[in-house]
């Protein structure tokens, strides 16, 4: 048997303190009324009010959301296709190159990806803007989607697809009616991953953005370079809150689904 020792308890406490205290400080001081971010001067929500009146931030947020929705959707379609080709495609010419191109972007430094895409856009004379950021984000996040989806494809019983063919489906019908519904949770998490990656990205967006297409990370980066600001604290708090609510809600939903499934399985055995 494993035993939970005092050493384990201490290391977990310290570890999670290390992970969460910086974010807690950020959140607490976003409600600080002082302009000096490291001195507490009383509770206030004025930085949130200022943030919501800051046109530049709101514009950047809007650009970011547009880019994230478009690129994550495109990345999900392309990434799912790529995963299906990798896992079920069999042999074809250039398969090794294909799987290499799927895995390489995952380990590629962002500065290199960004630089190379920028040089491509210049070489073909494509004006930089929202569209080029979407192209760039789609390219690297489709690889993440394809990894998530292909791990699901690998783990599920191939004979389920064969059964669909056996019962009269064309290969495309088998994908639409059987494969897609089964891998759908993985496709959704792939989309969410692509969405957060796009939302988060500073480096690649900096290379591929044009003057009129500043995203939120670019905006945050240029302002925090000058130092800590309470407005950024407020913005960070909002972003952390959205993510935390999303992740906790998703895990509660999936926990409930698993619990229900286990209960039903138990009943099935007893019946």
């Amino acid at each position: 048997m494993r035993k939970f020792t005092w050493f384990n308890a201490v290391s977990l406490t310290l570890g999670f303190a290390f992970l969460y205290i910086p974010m807690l400080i950020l959140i607490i001081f976003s409600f600080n009324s002082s302009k000096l971010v490291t001195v507490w001067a009383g509770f206030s929500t004025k930085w949130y009010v200022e943030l919501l009146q800051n046109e530049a931030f709101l514009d950047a947020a809007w650009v970011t959301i547009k880019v994230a929705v478009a690129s994550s959707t495109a990345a999900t379609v392309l990434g799912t296709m790529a995963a299906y080709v990798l896992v079920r495609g069999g042999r074809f010419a250039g398969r090794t190159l294909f799987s290499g191109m799927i895995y390489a972007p995952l380990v590629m430094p962002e500065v290199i990806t960004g630089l190379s895409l920028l040089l491509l856009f210049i070489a073909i004379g494509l004006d930089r803007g929202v569209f080029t950021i979407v192209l760039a984000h789609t390219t690297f996040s489709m690889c993440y989607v394809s990894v998530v989806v292909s791990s699901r494809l690998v783990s599920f019983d191939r004979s389920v697809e064969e059964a669909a063919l056996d019962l009269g489906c064309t290969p495309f019908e088998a994908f639409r009616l059987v494969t897609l519904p089964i891998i759908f949770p993985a496709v959704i998490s792939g989309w969410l991953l692509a969405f957060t990656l796009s939302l988060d990205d500073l480096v690649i967006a900096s290379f591929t953005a044009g003057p009129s297409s500043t995203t939120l990370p670019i905006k945050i980066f240029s302002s925090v370079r000058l130092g800590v600001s309470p407005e950024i604290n407020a913005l960070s708090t909002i972003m952390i809150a959205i993510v935390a609510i999303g992740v906790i809600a998703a895990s509660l939903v999936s926990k409930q689904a698993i619990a229900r499934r286990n209960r039903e399985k138990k009943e099935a055995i007893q019946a």
Partner: protein
Amino acid sequence: MSDPVSATPPVFAPWDDPSETPLIHFQNVTKRFGDFTAIDDLTIDIYEKEFFALLGPSGCGKTTLMRMLAGFETPSEGVINLAGKNIVSVPPNKRPVNMMFQSYALFPHLTVAQNIAFGLERSKMPKDKVGARVDEMLKLVQLEKFGGRKPHQISGGQRQRVALARSLAKAPKLLLLDEPLGALDKKLRTETQFELMEIQESTGTTFVIVTHDQEEAMTVASRIAVMDHGRMVQVDTPDRIYETPNSAYVADFIGDVNLIEGNAASHHKDGKIEIHWREGEPPVVGTPMVPIEDGTRCTFAIRPEKVHISKEHPEGKANILHGKILDIAYLGNISTYHVELPNGHVVKAQRSNSLRIERRKFTWEDEVWLWWTDTAGVVLTA
């Protein structure tokens, strides 16, 4: 149901009738995966309404053979005819063949009824007819109450029946069953074997079953094909496979057997031969099915239940051996005695325990006599 008293029903044996045309005809089929030959120049006929079992150890090619029938594998060479038409290039979704998968392959996101309806909807059957057919199939497998459940909400045995109902719903000409009972426990498996036979009979479908369980094949099949390394070793009815195996491989694979290897010698006038197998032991007398030349290397195979065991020297029997009991395996209904001959060779003999608390006639280290008639075993040259 036929009445066993009034008349013997006509024997179902289309394979013996030269005027019958087979439903499935494999003509010199070979399948290679890279360097590996899974099916090696195989020719076989399967007839309508047969319950045909493919039996063999794992890797013998039985699953590949079945997947070629379903359309998931294409033969490297050869022709597969179904009802007179070559189906080699027909994709699985266009074949009048359905398959029940070893893993059942039920669609986890659909209910039991939707699973059964799946194939019917693909065949453009009108909605109301689909419903009626689904109800019919649910009734056939006794799952009327479970139509609305998802696969994970029913037990393993019920899932097996859903898989069967789904594959039968389109009334295929041919149903393929890949280890259909492999996931069930032994007791449920035996019950389900009889259910399968009943369903096969009542629907009149041709069944081809893949199994590695020889008891299962013996129980359900009209004919069994024993396979090894991509070849058919013997295709025959269960009783003939058991009683007259054509090779030591088949004899050894099906049931328990004593194998005695030796050289054929001194023909008797009635066709019997003597097999000299060991210095100091009397030759074994057997009846070969085909004449064998003197000096041919051959194997004499005899089932343990056909070897008698006694304390006294039996008189006037064709084969008599003397030995000592080495081991006794008590199985409840029968006991198997392992008898060691003076030369070290062990022969197994079986006795049924027909009395409840029988006084044990034999025990370890007892000196006993073994005997059998000259027609009890088979002489094999392969």
